[in-house]
């Protein structure tokens, strides 16, 4: 395990060193960015809408009963912006995009395409890892911003339509605005940026270290998703603690 962590740190460092090559790889970055956004935006919206809705549904009626109606907007706003949108979207992206990264790079490794790159003096980190890391590091925070907005909308809609709450849209958003500040959203977006790096490093590392045939690729994909999720949850606690005021 420690050897793997060391290799991932080294991979991340080598990717950072490759950053000056980013402009040369812009076409591939854009392709990856489109791939991530196109594959995930609809799913992100559906997921975050229902997360917002279910948070409002769970917390709304008990808060109304205890005369804390004005807190509902704030609870939904904070929960989604600081925690649920970044974590849930990161887990979704680890499943959809991390697995694809590990599978694609893993099959290139198994079928000697990466060896072919090396024989042409093309660094696989420049060619394969850097574009994916950059794309996911930009795409995930943007998806999380979308998720926060859609999640808030889901919460507002349920608060308005549910007969136990019956809070108009305008009031919900006004309550939300009173409690949620810009730094709460920034916290969530920053967390998602860190999670994106974790997914990118873990998935690319698994892909580059794939051995064996199709079974090896399957193993790498599973490890990429599971290890990414474990990393996300652990770093979620660490980042939350560090970002506490």
């Amino acid at each position, binding site marked *: 395990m420690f050897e793997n962590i060391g290799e991932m740190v080294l991979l991340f460092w080598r990717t950072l060193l490759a950053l000056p090559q980013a402009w040369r790889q812009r076409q591939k970055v854009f392709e990856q960015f489109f791939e991530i956004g196109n594959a995930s935006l609809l799913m992100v919206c559906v997921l975050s809408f229902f997360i917002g809705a279910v948070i409002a549904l769970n917390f709304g009626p008990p808060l109304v009963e205890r005369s804390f109606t004005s807190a509902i907007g704030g609870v939904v706003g904070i929960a989604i912006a600081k925690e649920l949108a970044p974590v849930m979207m990161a887990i979704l992206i680890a499943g959809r995009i991390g697995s694809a990264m590990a599978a*694609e790079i893993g099959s290139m490794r198994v079928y*000697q*395409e990466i060896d*072919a790159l090396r*024989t*042409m003096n*093309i660094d696989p980190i420049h060619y394969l890892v850097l574009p994916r890391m950059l794309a996911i590091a930009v795409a995930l925070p943007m998806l999380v911003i979308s998720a926060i907005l859609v999640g808030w909308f889901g919460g507002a809609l349920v608060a308005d339509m549910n007969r136990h709450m019956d809070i108009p849209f305008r009031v919900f958003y006004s309550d939300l605005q009173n409690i949620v500040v810009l730094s709460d959203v920034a916290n969530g977006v920053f967390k998602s940026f860190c999670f994106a790096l974790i997914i990118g490093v873990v998935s690319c590392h698994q892909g580059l270290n794939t051995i064996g045939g199709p079974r090896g690729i399957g193993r790498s994909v599973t490890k990429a998703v599971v290890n990414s999720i474990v990393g996300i949850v652990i770093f979620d606690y660490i980042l939350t603690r560090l970002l506490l005021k």
Partner: protein
Amino acid sequence: MNDSPVNGSGVSLVVRGLRKTFAGQEVLKGVDFEVKPGEIFVIMGPSGSGKSVLLKHLIGLEDPDAGEILINGEAVGSPEVAAKYRMALVFQSGALLNSLTVGENVGLYLTEHRLKSPEEIRAVVLEKLADVGLKEAVDKMPGDLSGGMKKRAAIARALVIEPQLILYDEPTSELDPLSSVMIGNEILELNRRTHVTSLVVSHDRDLAFGVADRIAVIVDGVIVTVGTPAEVKQFKDPLVQQFLQADFKREQ
């Protein structure tokens, strides 16, 4: 056949005492041989004898446990020497990038190293593909090609580098006899035209004796004999003779 190797743009290759062990199993047990500039040198031997591992050492994909590899007298391994000499490997599977078209694969080296403009790259790609009879496949995906076409496309990709040393890993494996002959002829034609030093690793006896200036036979990680095709045929070692004369025993 090339009776006397020509000394053109090709480089010399010397391998001395090369050893490699994987997970306790010694795959290369002190390999020694020399390849002259412009020569077609074939290393043949049974499956599992260490041929492909040897090739990976020569191109720098593996580091030896012991021994040295010299190109024109300079030790391979340092980035300076690797950058100084142009080497290419034609993989057994072709190893074309499946996400790119054949043309993009062939031009990848020039594109990634920004060595020419896109128009010039396109022209070079078409020229190299024409050399291997694949000009019409420029916009096809590797998945749409037959095994023989993939290998020819891989040769075209190697040619773009304008190599001084070209390594072929089992170039005729999984090919029908006609395609095998076509690949063998490509190797000969390329050698005649560019005087590139060619090292072919194969267990295909027809290919080896058809194209080689000299042949080395590797058995169990050791080179047991090196010589011209005629000399190798006369070599008395029972393992070599068994390999060279293996045939079906059909009842008459």
